[in-house]
């Protein structure tokens, strides 16, 4: 029998038993929907992380202190100082530097109270990170020098402390010290790790002198004049810091310089692993879908034993019967796959629309879903199809 006749026969037998076909495909539909939705969330997360890092500026280098080799894990990392930042600022190809200190402290406003990441920064921080205040003002160099007790709140922090009210000019407590809120950052809408929405910024001098009493930096962000110079500048910074830190030729660096691309790669790898993990959980439901197909196909073969006998009596070869049932299984699984793709697309849309997560369905996901559907149809259809094709014609015709 010609293949398109086989496909037509399969299609008709499925179309004539709509409810069963739908139930058979249900497992596949759920599985494919889940896989598509997970991939869309993963891809969306990756894009938003990349977008956030890219939003920092495309030619940024980050210098961090590196724990000396052999030092215990808890040992303080005390290698970077402000003078290092000032020296880096003088290098050729460097457009700006932002020395930063990190800490965590209780932030209070009246009854409201939360633990927040407190970043000590200079006036250069906001422009260098392409951030801006939504209301109020940024820091001035004087705030830094004078250890002014002023703070800029991330959007989430401002909302948690003040709700819809304006925070500007209000007095808050940071680790028991009174501060005046001078600015609130515009919301970035990012979630998770190191989002500016969740930070409180204070002048670097205040951070060192008033809050945490330590003059070592958590990081120096360096803006390079152009992306092409990034590698040269990185080398220059490395040489400069080794010199300034008086490292012997055989000593390892006591700092680490990372570029945007490296951070992108790292974050991409993390979200990729995350997506793969969730994806394989979703794939298990595809397996369940495949078993569902096999189950219903076995029932179908039993119910249609007489039909199989008749087909054999009029000249169907074993392989014609095999193909017919295999095609039926594959048609069901493709049908399930297509519906699943559509529902997955719908789910991704709904998650983005109502859940506020960015979702992107990667193009390969469509091909993957379809390919996997076909493969599942074949793998789980071949057993029942073989059973059908090896029936004895006389026995099959005797069947009720």
């Amino acid at each position, binding site marked *: *029998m*010609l293949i398109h006749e086989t496909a037509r026969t399969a299609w*008709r037998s499925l179309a004539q038993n709509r409810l069963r076909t739908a139930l058979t495909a249900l497992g596949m539909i759920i599985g494919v929907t889940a896989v598509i939705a997970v991939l869309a969330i993963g891809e969306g997360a990756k894009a938003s992380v990349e977008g956030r890092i890219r939003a920092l500026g495309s030619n940024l280098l980050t210098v961090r202190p590196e724990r000396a080799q052999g030092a215990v894990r808890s040992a303080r990392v005390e290698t970077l100082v402000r003078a290092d930042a000032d020296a880096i600022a003088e290098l050729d190809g460097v457009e700006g530097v932002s020395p930063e200190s990190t800490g965590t402290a209780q932030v209070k406003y009246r009854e409201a109270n939360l633990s927040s990441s407190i970043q000590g920064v200079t006036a250069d921080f906001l422009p260098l990170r392409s951030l801006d205040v939504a209301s109020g003002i940024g820091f001035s160099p004087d705030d830094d020098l004078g250890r002014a007790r002023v703070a800029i709140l991330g959007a989430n922090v401002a909302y948690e402390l003040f709700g819809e009210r304006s925070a500007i000019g209000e007095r808050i407590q940071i680790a028991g010290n009174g501060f005046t809120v001078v600015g609130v950052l515009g919301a970035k809408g990012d979630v998770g790790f190191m989002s500016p929405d969740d930070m409180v910024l204070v002048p670097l001098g205040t951070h060192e002198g008033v809050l945490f009493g330590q003059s070592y930096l958590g990081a120096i962000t360096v803006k390079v004049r152009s992306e092409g110079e990034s590698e040269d500048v990185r080398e220059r910074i490395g040489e400069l810091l080794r010199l300034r830190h008086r490292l012997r030729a055989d000593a390892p660096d006591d700092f680490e310089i990372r570029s945007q691309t490296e951070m992108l790669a790292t974050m991409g790898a993390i979200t990729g692993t995350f997506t793969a993990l969730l994806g394989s959980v979703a794939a298990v439901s595809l397996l369940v879908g495949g078993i569902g197909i096999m189950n219903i196909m076995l029932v179908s073969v039993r119910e249609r034993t007489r039909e199989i*006998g008749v087909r054999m*009596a009029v*000249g169907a*070869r074993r392989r014609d019967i095999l193909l017919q049932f295999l095609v039926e299984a594959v048609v069901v699984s493709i049908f399930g796959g297509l519906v699943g793709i559509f529902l997955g697309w719908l789910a991704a849309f709904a998650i983005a629309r109502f859940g506020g997560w960015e979702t992107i369905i990667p193009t390969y996901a469509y091909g993957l879903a379809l390919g996997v559907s076909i493969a599942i149809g074949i793998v789980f259809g071949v057993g029942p199809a073989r059973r059908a094709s090896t029936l004895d014609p006389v026995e099959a*015709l005797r069947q009720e």
Partner: protein
Amino acid sequence: MSLAHEPTTGATHTPVVIEELRKIYHADRAELAVRAVDGISFRIERGESVAIVGPSGCGKSTLLHVLGCLDRPTSGRYFLEGRDVAQLDEDDRARARNRHIGFVFQSFNLLPRMDAVENVELPLLYAGQRDTRARALRALERVGLADRAHHRPNELSGGQKQRVAIARALVTEPSIVLGDEPTGALDSRTGREVMELLGRLHAEGTTIVLVTHDLSVARSQDRVIRMRDGKIVGDGPAAAEIEAFVQENAGDFA
């Protein structure tokens, strides 16, 4: 040494030649063995119409299944159109069923989800032929059901269903049409109509072998083969064999 081909006279083969055919169920366990067909030989010439009669369980259906290449004999030889069926593999046997055999069953065995013309078309599709729809329609015309081409089996009467089944058996122009009690599920009037149709097809040259309980059906064939316990007990012109059959069973009616 076995011959793959039965010796022939002239250009064409005898459609069916069987020699010492046996079908023994459970042949491996003596206490369970059933000698359903027990050493039968005959030949059926082209254009003949033959009725097989005999008590229930005497092996008629089993014999017909073997003739229809649906079942394999335990021993003996079977030449279909001159070819030794024992030499055929599974695919060849499927092809033989498709090309040379038209099977008509007591219970019609139409596929319920296909309309009449699609049922008739089925053997042509397995033959991989073109123009299947037109040929199926012509076969339906031959059995007088062109106007029911797009009716499903459940929209047809028993007699109509059997005529569709006959059209399906005829559509590939087989060497032989085999019928296992084709009127067995029909009332006597529609049974007669179906027999008239088969009679007409026979008159047009179709070779027909029917298993039947109905002596009037047997009487309208050229030749009658009487079976008992898997063996042939009589084979000859219809009138004489039916006479013998009635004599033989007279005791049952006394």
